[in-house]
């Protein structure tokens, strides 16, 4: 019972930044600009939010700075990748390296190994939902920081944005058949930019959630590959908001299981860490198998 609650709570906890990154990467994926810089953008927001909070003590400023600076990276990505037509994978990797290097550089200049906030703690960000808080098991939904709630609500929001609004339709059109968009006077560059920038906004939320809200601290490389997991989830869900977010949650479940069960595993606990990764592969393989079971065509879509 206790264990179940822990697992559920941790699932929400671990899914959140990945969901946000997934939502962030979706639009770019749909607009046919693979954004591999999710990791770096998230790291940037994680760093800037804590740094500004550390220097100014102003939460509002911290969040604002994180979002603005992350969207600036989005601008860099778009400018180089869309306007100058550079190789987006290289640019993405470049931004990942860059944000990491900058955080290390600044920490080095400040003579810190990490930033640990003292005047504010993770507990200060938690929000309890009045009624749900009292219901057993369901109470795992309560007691999360604001952005966690936002993340889950955003899945619905993004779903609507993607399928019910002009913006979503245009982004998909631009990704699927840019010529068609251009021939109807849809400014494809504008929508690609918007897709990337919206993505960096979500990554910024993910970063703030990861560092400021959940830990009230920043350590170098604290994103630990979550951006890449998000990319995997996007691919698994083929850019569909709900399905992709579902994969993100699946990963969160696996992670929560691995962490909670490894307590009982003794020396084999180290092997539990691979569960989330292997599970993702297995699920993807099964889904793909079912889909291509009847495939008689020998032509590959690479």
């Amino acid at each position: 019972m206790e264990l179940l609650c822990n697992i559920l709570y941790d699932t929400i906890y671990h899914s959140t930044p990945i969901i946000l990154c997934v939502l962030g990467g979706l639009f770019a994926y749909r607009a046919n600009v693979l954004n591999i810089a999710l990791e770096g953008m998230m790291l940037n927001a994680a760093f800037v939010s804590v740094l500004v909070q550390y220097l100014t003590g102003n939460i509002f400023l911290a969040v604002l700075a994180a979002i603005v600076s992350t969207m600036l990276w989005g601008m860099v990505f778009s400018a180089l990748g869309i306007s100058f037509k550079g190789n987006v994978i290289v640019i993405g990797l470049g931004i990942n390296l860059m944000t990491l290097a900058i955080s290390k550089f600044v920490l080095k200049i400040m003579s810190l190994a990490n930033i640990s906030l003292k005047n504010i703690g993770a507990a200060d960000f938690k929000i309890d939902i009045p009624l749900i808080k009292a219901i057993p098991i369901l109470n795992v939904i309560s007691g999360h920081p604001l952005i966690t709630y936002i993340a889950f609500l955003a899945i619905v929001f993004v779903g609507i944005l993607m399928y019910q609004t002009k913006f979503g339709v245009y982004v998909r059109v631009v990704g699927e058949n840019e010529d068609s968009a251009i021939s109807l006077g849809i400014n494809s560059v504008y929508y690609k930019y918007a897709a990337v920038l919206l993505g960096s906004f979500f990554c910024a939320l993910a970063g703030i959630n990861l560092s400021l809200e959940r830990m009230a601290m920043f350590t170098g490389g604290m994103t630990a590959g979550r951006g890449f997991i998000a990319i995997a989830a996007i691919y698994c869900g083929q850019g569909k908001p709900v399905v992709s977010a579902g994969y993100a949650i699946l990963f969160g479940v696996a992670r929560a299981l691995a962490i909670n069960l490894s307590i009982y595993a003794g020396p084999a606990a180290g092997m539990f860490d691979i569960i989330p990764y292997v599970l993702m592969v297995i699920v993807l393989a099964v889904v793909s198998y079912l889909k291509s079971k009847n495939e008689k065509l020998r032509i590959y879509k690479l």
Partner: protein
Amino acid sequence: MKQKEMIVKNILNSLVPILAAFILGGIIILAIGENPFTTYGILIRKSLFTWKGFLNTLHYATPLILTGLAIAVTFKANVYNMGVEGQMLLGGFFAGVAGAYLPLSTPLVGKLICFVIAALCGMLFALPPALLKARYQVNEMVVTLMLNYAVAKTLEFLTTGVFRDKSAGYVATPVISDTIMFQRIGSSRITAFFGMALIILFLMYILMNHSKLGFEMKAIGKNAEFAEATGMNVGKKIIILMLLSGALSGIAGAGWMMSDQFKYTLSFSENPGLGWDGMLISLLGSHSPIEILIASIFYAALKTGSDSINMYTSVPKEIVEIIQAIIILFLAVKFIKEKTGRKNRWKQSRKEAE
């Protein structure tokens, strides 16, 4: 004339970003109150313009050449083997374990056995994603990415568990036996492994540019449907290329083990890792072997250079990482547009036709 123009353009296209990156980096160095010229002097001189430093740079470039090639053979065919890092670690790890536990008494055969084991390990890693891709069109990028993490965790588990060197006070496998260590040449760190990598590079050059498989690789990369329709058996080729890539990665790991690390530690490939570096190198070198060689050496020079900066200046060595990232960002963009080049060619051909 046309040829010359292209060469100049290519050179400018690589030099401009590097210069721009150094200027931006210089501004940062100035901002923290240091002299950018002395910093850059040290960065470049020690790693490229002293004999020993240059040979050391070549030594550090060696595994990068191989991981770069490993990336190139798949990326060129539009197959994204993101598992090079994991394959390299796996190869390195098991070469190390073999080197430490097996009674390998002759240097040559011993090394050969380790390389074979490593190549097999790399291929073993590459096989599931390749089969899944070929059979069920499972996205290989996702699978290899996930397996990377799984492999890193597994190796950590093995290193801290069964294969742990009990006598060491830290987490590492036992040191490999002396016989299979690559011997240093002179006082620098360079070993015969570099020569080996050059030979592999040459073979890969031939393979990629003049062989049937290379032709098919290119065709699959440019148009997979065309490749299938002209009988290239794309599924099979994907498996072959993935295995080749895995083998190259494994060899990179084994060589790194036998020429530099000598034991597997959790920081065997450092951050972000030889495989990831290889990916950048291959992308920067547009998946062409010659350019991969140049990019690896340049990359390694920055790495050794960052040590020099650390040792001889008080600029934080992280500045090198920043410069590196700026270079990468700028190199991604061709400042002098390819387009004009194509138009020129077009013009040329029209003229000839008349």
